[in-house]
């Protein structure tokens, strides 16, 4: 049932090589590396409020006030690379049982435990780069119903009508948004859900918003039995909604619930992430 989904040829061959090494050299050791995600809004720390709150601490790219009542994103297919050819791929497995689901993380502003991804069994060495997939890509969606962080009854963000997962969700309020109160949303609601994973050859307009993000640590991080390193990654919501590719005007862009609507914000995603600092 369990399936290893993510092993590119490169990593597979490297894994095989390391396996060979292991036989020859029983001294090969492993360590851990923690990735800690911290969400910010520009130069401010991100603090969430109740969905009906009129406490507006932040301004978007057009000087429109807003607040945040929900924020999160999926991270998967994490890889580490080092200056001397070190590599590590966090195994990704899926299955109906939550315990079968590994290597897929839902980072939620509301859940501090979800903000730390502990990578284990990382071969000892130096690492200076992390790559991850933001959103749930085709190869995972197409495995079918999956448990754990991908179970919609347990809080997974699954679109039913265009089946797939929302890669990043932001919800809040802005006085600039003319949205009226409904049974689902408060007045002045802003909801930007970035999803969509399909690439279809003969239809160039099909939108795939799953992004691969590579970040430099800016230094070499030692991983090994005697170390306990962590990398602090900032995700700047302002870069997502008011970034280099697109800026949201909440008077007109306030309810984004399909792949095409999220496309321009997805193009902002890479710049929203950066490594703030590392602890050795």
């Amino acid at each position, binding site marked *: *049932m369990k*399936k290893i989904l993510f092993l590119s040829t490169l990593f597979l061959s490297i894994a095989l090589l390391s396996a060979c090494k292991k036989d020859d050299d029983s001294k090969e050791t492993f360590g851990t590396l923690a990735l800690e995600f911290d969400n910010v809004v520009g130069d401010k720390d991100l603090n969430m409020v109740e969905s009906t709150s009129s406490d507006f601490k932040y301004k978007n790219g057009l000087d429109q006030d807003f607040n945040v009542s929900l924020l999160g994103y999926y991270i998967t297919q994490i890889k580490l690379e080092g200056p001397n050819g070190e590599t590590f791929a966090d195994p990704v497995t*899926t*299955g*109906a*049982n*939550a315990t079968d689901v590994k290597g897929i993380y839902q980072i939620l502003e509301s859940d501090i435990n979800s903000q730390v991804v502990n990578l284990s069994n990382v071969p000892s060495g130096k690492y200076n780069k992390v790559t991850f997939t933001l959103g749930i890509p085709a190869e995972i*969606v*197409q*495995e*079918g*119903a*999956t*448990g754990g962080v*991908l*179970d*919609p*009854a*347990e809080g997974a963000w*699954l679109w*039913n*009508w*265009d*089946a*797939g997962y929302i890669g990043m969700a932001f919800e809040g309020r802005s006085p600039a948004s003319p949205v009226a109160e409904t049974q689902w949303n408060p007045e002045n609601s802003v909801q930007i859900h970035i999803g969509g994973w*399909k690439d*279809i050859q003969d*239809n160039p*307009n*099909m*939108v795939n918003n799953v992004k691969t993000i590579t970040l430099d640590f800016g230094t070499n991080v030692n991983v090994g039995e005697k170390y306990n390193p962590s990398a602090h990654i900032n995700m700047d919501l302002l870069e997502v909604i008011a970034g280099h590719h697109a800026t949201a005007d909440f008077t007109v862009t306030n309810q984004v619930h*399909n*792949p*095409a609507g999220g496309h321009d914000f997805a193009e902002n995603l890479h710049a929203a992430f950066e490594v703030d600092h590392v602890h050795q």
Partner: protein
Amino acid sequence: MILVFAVIGCKKDETKKEDKYAFVVPANFPAPVYTFENNPVTEAGFKLGKKLFFDPILSVDNTVSCNNCHNQSLAFADLSLHPFSKGVEERQGIRNAPQLVNLAFMKEFFWDGGVTHLDFVPLNAIESEFEMDEEIGHVIEKLNADPEYPALFEQAFGSSKVTTPLMLHALAQFTTMMVSNNSPYDKYLRGEAALSEHELEGLHLFEQKCQSCHAGILFTDESYRNNGIDTAFTDLGRARITAFDGDIGKFRVPSLRNVAITPPYMHNAKFASLEAVLDHYINGIKPSPSLDASLKNGIPMTPSEKTAIISFLKTLTDKDFTQDERFFRE
């Protein structure tokens, strides 16, 4: 005649020995698309899926089950009395409920193809406000609180805790088994029965006039096409998924298996009979920007060709499937 009975007798004995609940790929079908490696069909899983399929517990007020709109005697299509599905509180859907046939071989689902894995199909019906209008989390709560379901999930999956993926897997075990390959046409292909001359003439005409879209043994090429039903479309069809204007008014090419027992036809239930459908292709095509190129001039058919094609289409009705007792409510 004696020989025929003897042959049938042998076959029956053979099937008795086989596992009735194993998924079997018909010899002339393509490889299944469904991820059976993640969810192999078992008797307990199939029967659990069947119980769920017939159980209105999936809907918000416990009144609507999958079976309400997917009736086995109609190859799991809806009654012709319900051109649009009836949901909770008599709410009406916007499209005609399709038959459920050979789903394990299909890449995409629904008239717009928005769902790309069979596991996810029931979520659409459960959560749609004009179908079951229920929250998936609430369905799972109800199933966990039910006196029977936890034990049945334990039997099927080794876990008495009901979860969304296990519920979806049970339903998929039931629906993947809906294989229709025993129509008179299939028996003709296998050399087990003959078609009449009129039906064979219809088959020949079908190959010339219909098969470019209703292709292969599944009778669909699984493409999305605008077949000239309207000049303007309130239901955007495929464009709802692709957000591409060129896809407005395109809908999935449906399989024609069991087509004679699944009226009305088209996503909007526009045609009540096969005659009306063929008349549409002869001279009813309406122009619009995304109209399929192959239909711009209609499909010419004489009245006698039309009746021959219809007599062939009737050979796609699979009574072994519509009367297969494995699918009967228990």
